[in-house]
């Protein structure tokens, strides 16, 4: 089926074109009334000094040099609407003079602008006024989504996850999920002689596991690494068949969806009487859960959220996980996913793990809190039709960074970053670089003494069980 030409850089489903400015303002008003965004905008419209310091931090602007991509320019698009329609002086000006009026064209510019931002929030650290342009993008996308301006890729996936039969963004039915996991168990046995299991629907497990569901299709090595670590550390974990997808596109376009998705995660955890939520290697899934499970699901009473890298790091530190030093000889570098690094949450843990197993680990510069986005942040990686923009513009700085390290393995513990970086490497002539997850390397470096079994014995065991 061919797509007809979209109004925007990305495809959307058909939506109601009548009275858009009025409907947008109504949605914006409702959002401002029931959230804290209004307070934020009140401060931002008073303090924004347009110093353009943010421009130098934005990888998109650095690539294009187009002022439309300056974070402050983009945020001003929303500030202008707020000033005109939601402040006293703006309303007065509107009455007395021929002031700015929200039009369809203006909304179209806004709709394009907010999806050319990867919401990586790197610019926040450069703003003397503390303006969080990522938050402004986040808000603008929500308001636009209420008049149905949503990239189709995000919308369709979220619809399947919340209202579809399969309850996940990749539309994997439970039997297929179980098949995949059985296959991975066999692989673990064949390659590593490790009888690790993917336990389904175990009640009372300590951890209920929610990876980015696309990992089941695309990242077998990461998942095998996850299972192997859980096995040798005797971790009590389970995968729920009711809801098993950590992906949360609500973070990218609507707080309403964000709320509904994290609520599903918590409900599944409660159904299984699990104690903690364990998120796989995925930046946005981790941030959505870590920061918004408490927001929408009972504050301190909500189940704690742990990222699998935190778990593995803890096991390495307390000695339950043994890794073989220098088992990865090739040069390795690490990409910080913005959603877990920007806040300073997960920066050193994976590096300590990598330094324990790699003989040649090099960091990119800058890294950590000040890292560069892969170019596919903010859900843009799922929008295939903007690949040229993502890899050519958004990912250009990253490509240069990767090239400079000369690494063979690029560790990117995030489903979105992995897909994007693989495409970035392809489009920038970095075919020799292999984009992997952290656990892909961990499983190759685990000291499995005492855990492995001979394949024949396993078959005998199976036979006797049967």
């Amino acid at each position, binding site marked *: 089926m061919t797509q007809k030409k979209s109004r925007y850089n990305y495809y959307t489903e058909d939506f109601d074109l009548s009275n858009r400015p009025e409907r947008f303002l*109504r*949605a914006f008003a*409702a*959002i401002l*009334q*029931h*959230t*804290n*965004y209004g*307070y*934020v905008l*009140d*401060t931002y419209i*008073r*303090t*924004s*000094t*347009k*110093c*353009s*310091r943010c*421009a*130098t*931090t934005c990888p998109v602007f650095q690539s294009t*040099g187009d*002022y439309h991509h*300056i974070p*402050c*320019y983009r945020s*001003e698009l929303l500030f202008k609407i707020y000033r005109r329609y939601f402040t006293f002086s703006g309303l007065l000006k509107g009455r007395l003079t021929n002031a700015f009026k929200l039009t369809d064209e203006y909304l179209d510019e806004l709709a394009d602008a907010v999806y050319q931002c990867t919401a990586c929030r790197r610019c*926040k650290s*450069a703003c*003397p*006024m*503390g*303006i*969080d342009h990522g*938050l402004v993008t986040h808000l603008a996308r929500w308001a636009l989504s*209420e008049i149905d301006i949503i990239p189709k890729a995000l*919308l369709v996936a*979220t*619809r399947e996850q*919340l*209202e579809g039969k399969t309850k996940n963004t990749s539309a994997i039915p439970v039997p297929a999920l179980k098949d995949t996991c059985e296959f991975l168990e066999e692989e673990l046995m064949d390659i590593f002689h490790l009888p690790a299991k993917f336990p389904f629907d175990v009640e009372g497990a300590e951890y209920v596991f929610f990876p980015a569901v696309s990992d089941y299709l695309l990242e077998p090595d990461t998942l095998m690494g996850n299972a192997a670590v859980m096995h040798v550390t005797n971790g009590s974990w389970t995968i729920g068949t009711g809801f098993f997808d950590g992906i949360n596109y609500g973070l990218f376009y609507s*707080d*309403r*969806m*964000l*709320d*509904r998705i994290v609520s599903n995660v918590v409900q599944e955890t409660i159904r299984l009487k699990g104690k903690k939520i364990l998120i796989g290697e995925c930046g946005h899934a981790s941030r959505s859960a870590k*920061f*918004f499970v*408490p*927001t*929408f*699901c*009972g*504050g*301190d009473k909500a189940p704690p959220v742990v990222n699998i890298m935190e778990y593995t790091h803890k096991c390495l530190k307390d000695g339950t996980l043994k890794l073989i030093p220098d088992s990865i000889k090739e040069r390795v570098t690490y990409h910080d996913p913005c959603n877990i690094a920007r806040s*300073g949450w997960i920066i050193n843990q994976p590096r300590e793990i990598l330094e324990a197993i790699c003989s040649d680990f090099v960091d990119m510069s800058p890294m950590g809190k000040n890292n560069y986005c892969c170019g596919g942040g903010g859900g843009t990686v799922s929008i295939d039709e903007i690949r040229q923009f993502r890899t050519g513009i958004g990912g250009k700085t990253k490509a240069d960074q990767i090239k400079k390290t000369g690494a063979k393995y690029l560790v990117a513990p995030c489903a979105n970053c992995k897909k994007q970086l693989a495409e970035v490497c392809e489009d920038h002539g970095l075919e020799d670089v292999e984009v992997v997850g952290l656990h892909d390397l961990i499983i190759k470096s685990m000291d499995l003494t005492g855990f492995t079994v001979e394949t024949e014995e396993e078959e005998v065991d199976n036979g006797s069980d049967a």
Partner: protein
Amino acid sequence: MDQMLEFARGPLFRFSILFMILGLLRHLILTIIAITKGIRSAGDKNINYKNLFIDTLGWILPFKKMSERMLFSITSFLFHIGVILTPLFLFSHNQLWKRGLGFSLPSMNQSIANVLTIVTIIAIYALIIARASSKDSRAISRLQDFLLPVIISIPFITGYLASHMQINPFTYKATMLLHVMSSNFIFILIPITKLSHIVLLPTTQFIAEVGWHFPADSGKNVATALNKENVPI
């Protein structure tokens, strides 16, 4: 002229100062109320105050931040130093504070004041030139972004001229009138323009954090308000 100068230095000065103080207080109080309300309504009330405090301090004393865009940052920093210290600690201003407010601050050496004033004026025009000479900076600038620095430079220029009559082509009183009137104008502008960052800067890190702390029922309430509760995605 004498009467005008007296009026500008007397009632008009007191009015503008009062306008500024009340305006800034209003901003500050409203923002603190907003932060408090925001945290109270948030579903997740855990906030890392220590980090926010460190970030805030990092911008109030931005020594670490100056390594990025060094020339611009240092110019901007010098501008702020001059614009804050000179008016407050000038010997002749201290006499004004003493007379009008009943207390005075320590006075700075006149030659330091001269240097600071010149540095401030140069910094102001360097920043204006930087803004005007870049296509990108022009694109994001509003009229006030160009006008405010020019207006701020007037009391510095006239103040310097008033204390260096040998190079001043104008009469002392005319210079002083312009000096006082432009200062009064700035006091009035402060709470109604971006200059209100004078008091809002220490709140901005906190307000951004509050922005990410959504009320627990925000999503559901917005759905209700827009009649979308049972509408399929």
